[in-house]
């Protein structure tokens, strides 16, 4: 992943982050305020299957297909957003 979470987020990226947060909020039982650095499986205790299910919503919303291979290294909301954006940029499926 080359994009970093520092710097002003482009509107496009912000839109993705908001979409990720909106989806995660449905599963958020902790009451923790969601932000880019929130660790999804750690802090939110959302299991790996729920994260994969979350990708369905994002894939449809942004018209992309994210390989499972790339999900393993993703921890934070910001990283999920970067993954979604890199897929959207490449215009479809990216191999590992």
């Amino acid at each position, binding site marked *: 992943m080359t994009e970093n979470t520092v710097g002003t987020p482009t509107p496009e990226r912000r839109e993705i982050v908001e979409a990720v947060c909106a989806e995660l909020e449905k599963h958020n039982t902790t009451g923790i305020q969601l932000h880019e650095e929130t660790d999804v499986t750690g802090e939110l205790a959302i299991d790996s299957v729920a994260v994969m299910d979350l990708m369905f919503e994002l894939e449809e919303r942004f018209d992309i297909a994210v390989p499972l291979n790339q999900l393993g290294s993703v921890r934070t909301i910001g990283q999920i957003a970067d993954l979604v954006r890199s897929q959207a940029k490449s215009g479809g499926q990216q*191999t590992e």
Partner: protein
Amino acid sequence: MKDLLAKFTAVGRQHAELLAQVGSDPLGVRMDRVIGPTEAEIEGRRCVLLGSNNYLGLTFEPTALEGAHVALDAAGTGTTGSRVANGSYSMHQDLERQLAAFFRRRHALLFSTGYQANVGMLSAIAGRDDTVLIDSDCHASIYDGCKLSDATVQRFRHNDPENLDRRLARLQAPGNALVVIEGIYSMLGDRAPVREIAEVTRRHGAYLMVDEAHSLGVTGPGARGVAAEAGVADKVDFIVGTFSKSVGTIGGFCAADHDALEAIRLSARAYLFTASLPPAVVASARCTLERMRTDPGLRDRLWANAEIVYDGLARMGFELGPEKTPVIAVRMPDTQTGLATWRDLLDAGVYVNLALPPATPNGNCLLRCSVCAAHSADQLDHVLAAFARVADAPDWRGTAAE
């Protein structure tokens, strides 16, 4: 030095909480005595087994017991190695021929478990440029096989041929695509729409693998499973399955018409680097496969029993899986109710599987029931009476109370 095992702290804590809540370990139930295919003694109590996956009740099939005894005495307790290193026993090859004939395929390959069949096949056939598309509800062994492959892996929405279609349409990778589904899904008991999925798969020139773990012996002409039931067995490239359910023993296999299956024997690491099935197991599988092929009455009894349990539970207001099959998932409103209900059922002499997320779809706690052809009418009465008491209890928080 940090603590290597720190990652287990959370799991250990969750397990301890589970134990504290239930008063015994729902994930470590001990059967003190197995009384038959449908009954065992647990905590000093005779329990009806409604969570065995022993769909046809063939674990005590007389011909299999006898065949196993003969093989044990003749060939010993184990093969002590891989077939590639130690050699095959003739009975391994006989069973492979029998399996190939059973599924009307040219080739069959034996593995030591169904888990290894999926891991071995997927890791061998899906290469770096290929894409594997798996149904989201697929078994852990399919996920693990994908992980061990070098392929790109996508997950499509459960039982959704359109979602699969869109994914196949947008593939840009230079390699081949392989679609993996199950026949009857292990957790919710719903069938795959194999006909539609096979059509989509064909249209995109992709390959299709169907894991008939819970459907072999259970449905279809000749007990061949869901693809045969849907009349599209010829559109399935690889049939994978296990002996650990309807076949009543242990082992796994892949059947296919592709001649390369013989070369896969020399490539699949889960075949190469593990010991082959012991003689008694091979002999049992040979007998029970023959029994299920030639005795459709077993399937009739299984489905009649499934109907009794499904309809009975539905009448009580329990929320069940979408289809009436021998795998009946009873959705619990929350984990705590699930645990209490599971314990109440055990106290009433009924053993079901407690299934917790992430092993279940949609984060649900399920009481997973599997029906057996050998369940007697009395046993099913007993089961339904136990569920009825649970549903009537004042502290039951499920939909049944509403």
